[in-house]
C-alpha cells in the first residue's frame, strides 16, 4: 500500500460526507421511502441466502408444534363460523325488515382475493419501543401493493364446499388472522406495518357471543398502540361491548366476505364524559410474525351478472 494512502482524509471529504449525512435528515418522506426500498432491494439477495441457510438468524419465532397448530386450526374454524353465523343473522334480520330485493339487482363481488406466500427476510426496527416491521421477499414484480393485508399462514381448514356457498378463495381466507398490511413496496421486497403499529388503521366489527349465539356488533376503527396491543375506536357508548368479544374485519356491505380476524377484546371501559368506549384488543398473534406469511391481494375482476332476459352480461371492472 502506498504511503500516501495512510494519510488521513482531508477536511473537504469529511465535510462533504457530513453534509451528505445532514442532508439525509431533511429528506422528504417520499424520497426517504424510495431510498429505503432501494436499499432493501440491494440487500434482498443476501438476505434470501441468509434466510435459507441460517433461518434462526432472521429470528422468526419457533414453529408451533403439531398440537398447537391443530388447536389453532380448530380455533380458526370456530371463529369463522361464529362470524358467518353473526353475518347471516344480520342478513336475515335485514331481509325480514325490507321488501324482497330483485335478484338481478344483487351484484356479485367483483373483487377477487388472491393469496400469495412470502418469506420474511429481514426486519425494520427504528427503536426498541416500536414493534418490528418485517421485510418480505415479495415486491411490485410479484404484484404486491401498498395496503395489501398480510395474514398469518396455515393450512386451509374447512371441509365445506360450493354447496354451502363458499368459493374456493373463501376457503383459504376463512377465519385467518391479520398480522398487518403492506406499508411500502419496492421491486423485490415489501415492508409490513404490523397491526400494533400506532399508525395502523383498519375497519373492524365486533362479533358478540350472546347466549351461545354469535351476534354482529358495532363497527369501528382498529388502531395500533405503543403497548403492543390494539385499540378499537369510535364505538359509541350505546353499543354493547364486553370483554371476550371477537373483532373481525367489517362484515357488512364489504365485498370481502370471508371474515378475517383481528383479535379479542380484553379490556373495555366507559369513561365518564366520553362519547365512545375505551377498548383494548389483543391481536390473535402476539409477537413477531412467523418466517412465512400470506399476502392478500384484492384485485378487481370481471364478474358475470345474470339477468332474466339476456342470460349473462359483463360487469364493470
Amino acid at each position, binding site marked *: 500500500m502506498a504511503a500516501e*494512502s*495512510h*494519510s488521513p482524509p482531508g477536511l473537504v471529504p469529511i465535510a462533504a460526507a*457530513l453534509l451528505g*449525512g445532514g442532508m*439525509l*435528515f431533511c429528506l422528504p418522506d417520499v424520497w426517504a421511502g424510495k431510498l429505503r426500498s432501494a436499499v432493501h432491494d440491494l440487500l434482498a439477495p443476501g438476505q434470501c441466502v441468509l434466510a435459507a441457510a441460517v433461518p434462526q438468524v432472521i429470528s422468526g419465532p419457533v414453529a408451533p408444534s403439531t398440537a398447537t397448530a391443530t388447536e389453532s386450526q380448530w380455533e380458526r374454524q370456530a371463529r369463522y363460523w361464529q362470524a358467518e353465523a353473526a353475518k347471516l343473522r344480520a342478513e336475515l334480520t335485514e331481509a325480514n325488515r325490507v321488501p324482497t330485493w330483485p335478484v338481478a339487482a344483487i351484484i356479485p363481488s367483483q373483487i377477487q382475493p388472491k393469496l400469495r406466500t412470502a418469506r420474511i427476510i429481514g426486519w425494520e426496527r*427504528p427503536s*426498541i419501543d416500536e414493534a418490528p416491521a418485517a421485510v418480505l421477499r415479495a415486491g411490485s414484480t410479484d404484484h404486491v401493493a401498498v395496503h395489501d393485508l398480510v395474514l398469518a399462514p396455515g393450512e386451509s381448514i374447512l371441509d365445506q364446499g360450493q354447496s354451502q356457498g363458499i368459493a374456493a378463495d373463501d376457503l383459504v381466507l376463512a377465519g385467518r388472522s391479520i398480522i398487518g398490511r403492506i406499508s411500502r413496496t419496492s421491486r423485490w421486497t415489501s*415492508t409490513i406495518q404490523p397491526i400494533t403499529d400506532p399508525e395502523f388503521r383498519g375497519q373492524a366489527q365486533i362479533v358478540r357471543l350472546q347466549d351461545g349465539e354469535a351476534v354482529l356488533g358495532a363497527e369501528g376503527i382498529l388502531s395500533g398502540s405503543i403497548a403492543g396491543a390494539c385499540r378499537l375506536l369510535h364505538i359509541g357508548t350505546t353499543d354493547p361491548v364486553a370483554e371476550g368479544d371477537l373483532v373481525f374485519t367489517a362484515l357488512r356491505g364489504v365485498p370481502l366476505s370471508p371474515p378475517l380476524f383481528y383479535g379479542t377484546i380484553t379490556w373495555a371501559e366507559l369513561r365518564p364524559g366520553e362519547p365512545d368506549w375505551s377498548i383494548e384488543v389483543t391481536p390473535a398473534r402476539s409477537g413477531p410474525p412467523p418466517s412465512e406469511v400470506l399476502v392478500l391481494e384484492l384485485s378487481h375482476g370481471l364478474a358475470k351478472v345474470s339477468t332474466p332476459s339476456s342470460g349473462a352480461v359483463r360487469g364493470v371492472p
Partner: protein
Amino acid sequence: MGRTLLWMTLGYVSCLWDCSAGLHDSRWPSATGVYLTLLVMLWPKCGLWGAAICGLVLDAAHGGVLGSRVLGGVTATSLACHFSLHRAEIRWPRAAFSIATAIAIWLAAPLLTGGVRGDLQFNRWTQAQSIATTTLSSTLIVLAICALVWTKRVDRAD
C-alpha cells in the same frame, strides 16, 4: 481490483449481518464496526466513504433516522484516522482505546440522534449495556485480527 472487490463483498456481508440483527438488538459483535475499523486502519480515506455508505445502508434497512449512522460513522472514522490508527505504528493501549471509542460512536449514533429528535428515550440501562457489550466484543475481535495478521507480517518483514 481483486482486493477492492473482496473488501466490497466484506462490506456487503457485514451490513447484512448487522441488518439481520434488527429483531435482536443485543446481537454482537458489530460486523460493520469491525469492518470499518479495519478499513480505516488500512486505508483511512476508503474508511471514511465506507462508513458513509455502510451508515446509509444500515439507516435505510433498520428504519431509523436516516443519516444518523452516516454522521456517526464519518465522525468515528475521522477521529480514528487522526489517532494514527494504522498498522505501521500500532500501539496496543492507544489502539484499543481508539478502536473502542470509534465503535462506540458508530453504535450509539442512531440512539443519540433519536434522542436529540425526541423519537426515543436514551436512558435505558439495557441499551447502554447492549452498546457496551457490542463495543467490547468488536474491539477484541479487531485487536485479535491485528495481532494475528499484522504482527506476523511485521515479523516476516523483519
